[in-house]
């Protein structure tokens, strides 16, 4: 919220404090200042001038030539303003003056006649028409007051105002008002807070003879008070009132509306003025709306109401949406004779829900939803009536109609300075605590403290501690290190494994990426998932930013393809990327989805299937994950049917690896081959063995033998490996595929496969015969099992 320092100064003397110091100190005592500005900061060398004569311009019909007394001299100014006259006081931008928006004024000639400056309109001074009574829609400002020529216009128009913008936290509804801020300022700067209790007795009549109030729902409306003003004279507001509203960024409308707006900023209490003559039976009924009921609000829009909403009605129809906005049907007009001032307290949550449902957040609803003090009602409505009298805007009728069902405020909090000090880790004097709380209008009752009614946020010792601490100064609280039982701390096995995987992938040349957890449901089409695929069963966001971020992902493949494509489009020739992130699998509507962490790897450039497979194998090796099995997978729709493998470990599904299906690549606009793997982190974790044991270096020599066979080209080499391993058992130290050949000299439909075997025994040197026997057995078994023949 915004307020001028002048406004705050009405309640606490801060005249001698500059805006920076004021802002800094307020921020450090808990009323955060977002910023401050001076309204007239850009205005320079503009003064009040008195027009001594007005004569026609010799060469222009629409211009006049004026002689103007600007204090120390008389100058000539040519103007086109239609509203100037002899004797008028006007703002004059002198030669070499500055106006808002970087405008500079210098003397010059207008149609041949010298003009030593310019008369200013409200717009040229950065003001609204409503900010000053003398402002004119299509002319210059004519001052209403008798001001000496030469006076700085910033003084004359109250433009030399420092406007402070405060951030008001939801717990401090009381600070959503100038009084609340002034109260904080008084304690911050140790100065008296000057608030006069408003007193308006009114005439000898009784308000209750004019109108009656009935509150049906006392939960949503704990208090409803009203006063009556008769012989209302709607008119413009005086300058002091306009100035204060201007500082808060509120436009002046007329005296009565301005008074309600003033109360909103001064007390933080929304008010509404009804034209009593439009209230059927002069009756106010506070009730829930009927389903299907309608009201046209002050902004001219018809609103549909329902029974969750509280309305103010007369005996027949709703006349306002409680705490949100008044109705057009009972609004005050130029000819209003008698008005009813509403000053009420409504349930914050209810106002909030109603305003949200109607899509109508107003200043009033913003105040109500923070939760207002029902005990300020009387002062607020009296203050409004006091202003009516002060402004001569009507005759206040005696008495208040007050339906008060507000629960009693019985808060009493034990005040124990030692406890507060122990909690803060300080040694603050009891006297300081008592003084601070007293200045904040807390009352003491023995060892109990009673917070003021407007401080509903204060409930317990911790709250008192905060009040004391923020004025003691957070920065004066000492800094100590944690004591007590110390724990070892650290990462658990899962977190360590995750770090290990990431570091291993980085060592393998991959860059880690971070992508959004929400995706477009269209991504499933891009990666060619059939309509029935279980991955299409997703957690949906009710209020997404857009369709592209509307569902929680069930696979990382789509995001990986996005990033590969982005990189390709940015002309990065090669990419090796990985991501570790969650997928989200829906359960029942009442339960949280299952979040599973996945490892995605993606590559393109100078790589093929065996690069990404090698990366997975290297990763497995580094993290102690052994026994990966790859099986050709022809039916994963996202992958090339001939270049995809399902990976299992210990019989558990680990994931898929392969070349992205050309159609998928095309869907992404990706113009080359991409390779992607997606592995399940939990499965890795369950199967990895990070414990390492030293194995003795071999004592006996190894023997190397090569074997090349011809077999069916569709037989996976893994089958041949299985045979070799089965025969050699633990004598096989290493098995390396060194050639696969199809073509010349090899029969159609067959391939030649060659392996190199390294054999070693830990018990002795292997004998030639033993090896030969083993090799013969391998050939025999390959023949029997795979139909392979020695090449």
């Amino acid at each position: 919220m915004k307020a001028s320092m002048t406004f705050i100064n009405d309640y606490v003397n801060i005249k001698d404090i500059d805006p920076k110091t004021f802002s800094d100190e307020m921020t450090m005592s808990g009323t955060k200042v977002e910023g401050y500005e001076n309204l007239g900061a850009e205005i320079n060398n503009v003064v009040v001038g008195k027009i001594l004569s007005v004569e026609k311009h010799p060469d222009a019909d629409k211009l006049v030539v004026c002689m103007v007394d600007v204090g120390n001299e008389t100058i000539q100014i040519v103007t086109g303003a239609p509203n100037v006259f002899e004797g008028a006081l006007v703002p004059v931008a002198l030669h070499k003056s500055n106006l808002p928006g970087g405008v500079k004024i210098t003397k010059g000639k207008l149609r041949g006649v010298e003009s030593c400056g310019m008369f200013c309109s409200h717009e040229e001074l950065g003001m609204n028409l409503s900010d000053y009574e003398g402002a004119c829609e299509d002319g210059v400002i004519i001052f209403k007051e008798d001001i000496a020529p030469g006076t700085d216009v910033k003084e004359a128009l109250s433009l030399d105002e420092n406007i402070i913008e405060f951030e008001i936290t939801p717990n401090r509804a009381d600070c959503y008002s100038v009084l609340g801020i002034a109260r904080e300022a008084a304690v911050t700067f140790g100065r008296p807070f000057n608030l006069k209790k408003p007193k308006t007795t009114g005439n000898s009549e009784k308000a209750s003879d004019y109108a009656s109030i009935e509150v049906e729902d006392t939960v949503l409306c704990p208090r409803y008070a009203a006063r009556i003003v008769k012989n209302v004279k709607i008119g413009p507001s005086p300058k002091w009132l306009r100035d204060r509203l201007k500082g808060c960024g509120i436009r002046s409308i007329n005296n009565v509306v301005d008074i309600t707006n003033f109360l909103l900023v001064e007390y933080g209490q929304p008010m509404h003025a009804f034209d009593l003559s439009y209230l059927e039976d002069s009756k106010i009924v506070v009730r829930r709306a009927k389903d299907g009921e309608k009201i046209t609000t002050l902004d001219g829009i018809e609103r549909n109401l329902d029974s969750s909403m509280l309305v103010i009605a007369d005996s027949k129809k709703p006349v306002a949406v409680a705490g949100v906005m008044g109705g057009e049907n009972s609004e005050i007009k130029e000819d209003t004779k008698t008005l009813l001032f509403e000053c009420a307290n409504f349930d914050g949550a209810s106002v909030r829900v109603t305003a949200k449902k109607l899509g109508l957040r107003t200043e009033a609803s913003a105040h109500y939803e923070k939760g207002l003090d029902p005990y300020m009602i009387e002062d607020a409505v009296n203050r409004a009536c006091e202003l009516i009298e002060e402004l001569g805007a009507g005759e206040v009728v005696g008495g208040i109609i007050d339906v008060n069902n507000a629960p009693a405020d019985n808060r009493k909090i034990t005040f124990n300075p030692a406890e507060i000090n122990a909690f803060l880790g300080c040694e603050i004097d009891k006297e300081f605590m008592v003084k601070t709380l007293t200045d904040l209008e807390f009352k003491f009752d023995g060892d109990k403290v009673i917070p003021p009614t407007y401080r509903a946020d204060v409930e317990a010792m911790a709250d008192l501690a905060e009040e004391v601490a923020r004025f003691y100064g957070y920065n004066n609280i000492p800094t100590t290190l944690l004591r007590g039982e110390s724990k070892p701390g650290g990462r658990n096995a899962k977190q360590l494994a995750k770090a290990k995987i990431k570091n291993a992938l980085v060592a393998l040349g991959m860059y880690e990426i971070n992508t959004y957890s929400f995706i477009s449901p269209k991504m499933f089409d891009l990666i060619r998932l059939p309509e029935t695929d279980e991955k299409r069963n997703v957690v949906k966001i009710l209020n997404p930013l857009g369709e592209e971020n509307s569902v929680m992902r069930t696979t990382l493949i789509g995001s990986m393809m996005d990033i590969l494509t982005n990189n390709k489009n940015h002309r990065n020739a090669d990419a090796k990327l990985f991501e570790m992130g969650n997928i989200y699998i829906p359960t029942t509507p009442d339960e949280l989805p299952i979040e599973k962490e996945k490892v995605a790897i993606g590559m393109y450039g100078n790589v093929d299937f065996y690069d990404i497979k090698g990366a997975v194998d290297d990763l497995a090796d580094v993290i102690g994950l052994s026994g990966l099995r790859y099986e050709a997978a022809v039916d994963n729709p996202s992958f090339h049917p001939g270049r995809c493998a399902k990976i299992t470990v210990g019989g558990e599904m680990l994931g898929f690896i392969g070349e992205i299906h050309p159609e998928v690549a095309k869907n992404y606009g990706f113009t080359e081959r991409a390779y992607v793997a997606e592995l399940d982190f939990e499965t890795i974790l369950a199967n990895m063995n990070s414990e390492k044991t030293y194995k003795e270096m071999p004592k006996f020599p190894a023997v190397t033998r090569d074997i090349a066979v011809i077999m069916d080209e569709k037989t996976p080499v893994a089958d041949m490996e299985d045979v070799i391993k089965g025969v050699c058992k633990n004598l096989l130290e290493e098995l390396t595929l060194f050639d696969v050949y199809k073509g010349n000299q090899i029969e159609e439909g067959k391939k030649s496969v060659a392996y190199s075997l390294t054999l070693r025994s830990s018990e002795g040197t292997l004998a030639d015969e033993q090896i030969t026997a083993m090799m013969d057995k391998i050939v025999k078994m390959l023949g029997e099992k795979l139909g392979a023949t020695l090449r």
Partner: protein
Amino acid sequence: MKEMLAKIRETAALEISAINIDSEEAKTLLEDARVKYLGKKGELTSVLRGMGGLSPEMRPVIGQVSNEVREFIEKAIEEKKNLIAERESALRLEKEVIDVTMPGKRNTSGRLHPLTQVLTEIEDIFIGLGFEIAEGPEVELDYYNFEALNIPKNHPARDTQDTFYINDNIVLRTQTSPMQIRVMEKTAPPIRIIAPGRVYRSDAVDATHSPLFHQIEGLVIDKGVTMADLKGSLELFAKKLYGEDAVIRFRPHHFPFTEPSAEVDICCFSCGGKGCRLCKGEGWIEILGAGMVHPKVLETCGVDPKEYSGFAFGLGLERIVMRRFDINDMRLLYENDLRFLKQF
């Protein structure tokens, strides 16, 4: 015979020293000289063959002289050999000169994402202070994300966090603070944890906003934990992260789940507090929110506020990363362009 030996010594010395070590046949010439003087049919040998005709008195004398000559020649040859070897070695090294300014052969190591790099650093600081790392769901119950944190339904405090809803009771967590509740429900004090993770807010994407970002929550619960401890712990953290001369300040603020609450600012490292573009003229940059755990929150989790107290804090990872690396647009962190990723 003495004269003959002296002559051999002289001519051999001359011949060996005359060999030009730069010439290609230097090695051959030296070998030839060795054969000529010391070989089986060499000059020295043939002189010694005539020893038989000497008097017994003279034999040892001549024998001694001839040994001296042999040793002299051997030494001369050895020295020459070394010279040749040295010369050869020098020549080889000369031939092997390479251009050391040519580029090295690089290992193609990748990099961790900048968010991970800084997160790991922050985790390590707190691990050093005895903290454990807690993790929890990103799709979270409204209860944990709001209600248990003292933010009831229809409370205006919900306005400060625009929430993605899955249904009335399930949200994408808007903060890592629900981890405070989950940890306290499961673990008896003393508690020292940090909980990093993804959080979600319905903010449109721009240079400083992302609907998804990372927070790091901290929670300490024990007997006698004070606000001074909170200040001390966070000051230590700031000094570890930003350097020993980092200056922080605590400013009163409001969070529904802490009381007293504070925002913590760090003195602008760019201008030293004078005010500049980076700190928007304020001299201070907000880095985290913190406070003493609200007694209501403790009670909700079954922790007796009369016995235990604690503090909590939360910081935004992206902002720290962006300031650390001078990144001016948050979107870069999620675009994952290699030209960006390779810089960290």
